[in-house]
């Protein structure tokens, strides 16, 4: 079997063509980046929530009451952004309870938020940032993306930590099951095992519960480190 050093040597040779003729620190490319960064005011990019009010009103008219999210406009507003950009479209929410990034999932699923890079009707990875105490949820896979908007990441597990890995698996699995009105038991079980293995969570197991209902859902028993695939009725069409 090929040793690690031999494998690494081949990997370096495989990627070497991509790094020929790289620009140096005095290149026009580097100069352009310097210019972009050092131009006045770029360190404090204005965060322009110009669409918050319109989005809240549109959502309200479009049936946001069914989410139960806009009952009390005095509550702090959470903002869901369509992109990691100061001019992104924004959906404003006034959530019950503590705001979390998951609050924005319905806005993506319903098409209230869209992004050319995100398949319609699916939820991208979401990250919570904080803007003066208000949760701002952006489509990103890493909290450091908050800094691109001059925001601070909301307190979350460190990426790559076991807690973050588990949260990631749960999120991926939730998105997987949301694709189907009646998720298949074998498919959900296989996906759960695959995601756990990929995250290196080797001490977690997947257990399937029998029952009369035909569709699979996922419960998590953290005490026993078990993902439990449980039977549920089919989701109503469009539900």
């Amino acid at each position: 079997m090929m040793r690690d050093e031999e494998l690494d040597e081949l990997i370096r040779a495989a990627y070497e063509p991509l790094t020929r003729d790289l620009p140096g620190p005095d290149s026009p490319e580097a100069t352009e980046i310097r210019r972009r960064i050092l131009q006045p005011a770029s360190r404090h990019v204005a965060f322009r929530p110009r669409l918050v009010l319109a989005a809240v009103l549109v959502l309200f008219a479009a049936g946001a009451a069914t989410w139960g999210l806009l009952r009390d406009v005095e509550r702090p507003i959470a903002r869901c952004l369509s992109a990691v950009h100061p001019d992104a479209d924004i959906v404003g929410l006034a959530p019950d309870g503590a705001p979390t990034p998951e609050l924005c999932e319905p806005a993506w699923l319903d098409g209230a938020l869209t992004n050319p890079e995100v398949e319609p009707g699916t939820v991208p990875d979401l990250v919570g940032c904080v803007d003066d105490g208000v949760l701002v949820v952006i489509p990103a896979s890493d909290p450091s993306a908050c800094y691109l908007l001059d925001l601070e990441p909301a307190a979350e597990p460190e990426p790559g930590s076991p807690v973050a890995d588990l949260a990631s698996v749960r999120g991926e699995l939730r998105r997987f099951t949301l694709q189907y009105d009646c998720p298949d038991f074998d498919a959900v079980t296989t996906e759960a095992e695959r995601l756990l293995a990929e995250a290196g969570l080797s001490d977690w197991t997947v257990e399937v519960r029998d029952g009369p209902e035909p569709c699979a859902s996922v419960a998590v028993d953290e005490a026993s480190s078990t993902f439990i695939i449980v039977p549920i009725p089919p989701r109503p069409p469009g539900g």
Partner: protein
Amino acid sequence: MSEPAANTRLRLEAAFDDHYTDVVAFLRRRLPAESVQDAAADVFLVAWKRIDEFPDGLPRNWLLGVAYRVASQAYRGTRRRRRLEEELSRQRQAVSADIEDEAAARDEVDVVFAAMQEISRSDRDLIQLAALDGLSHAEIGEIIGTSTENVAVRLSRARQRLRTRVEEIGESS
């Protein structure tokens, strides 16, 4: 310009001089050429916002950590990931094809590159950080936010999966 602002600017210039090429190389191994400039700008924008936290200069590995996250951000979404992987492979192939005198050695290397594109992103990230960026397990752990021991275990498994894929591709071609 005030003295603190001038000092900050000087430190950013120093970070450019010391690490720009490393950051661009890091990004170029992960992103198509046309995406590298914007990604590098994102990295140094974050660096500038955080530069006050590093009075002795921006550490290379910290910048690579930011670059890692910026590149990861670009790979968000399955369709986008596939498109980026295909474009990266195409660009690498275009460069390699120009080097006729290396043709004999290229086959095995091409198989390794193809296998790298086919393993999971998390496996590829770990292998790249170790083999291409020359980072230790501890340094990788700092970048991806996990323990040195966890990196060692995951990297070993990732290399094994890569070897398996290399063998499969080699046998099928």
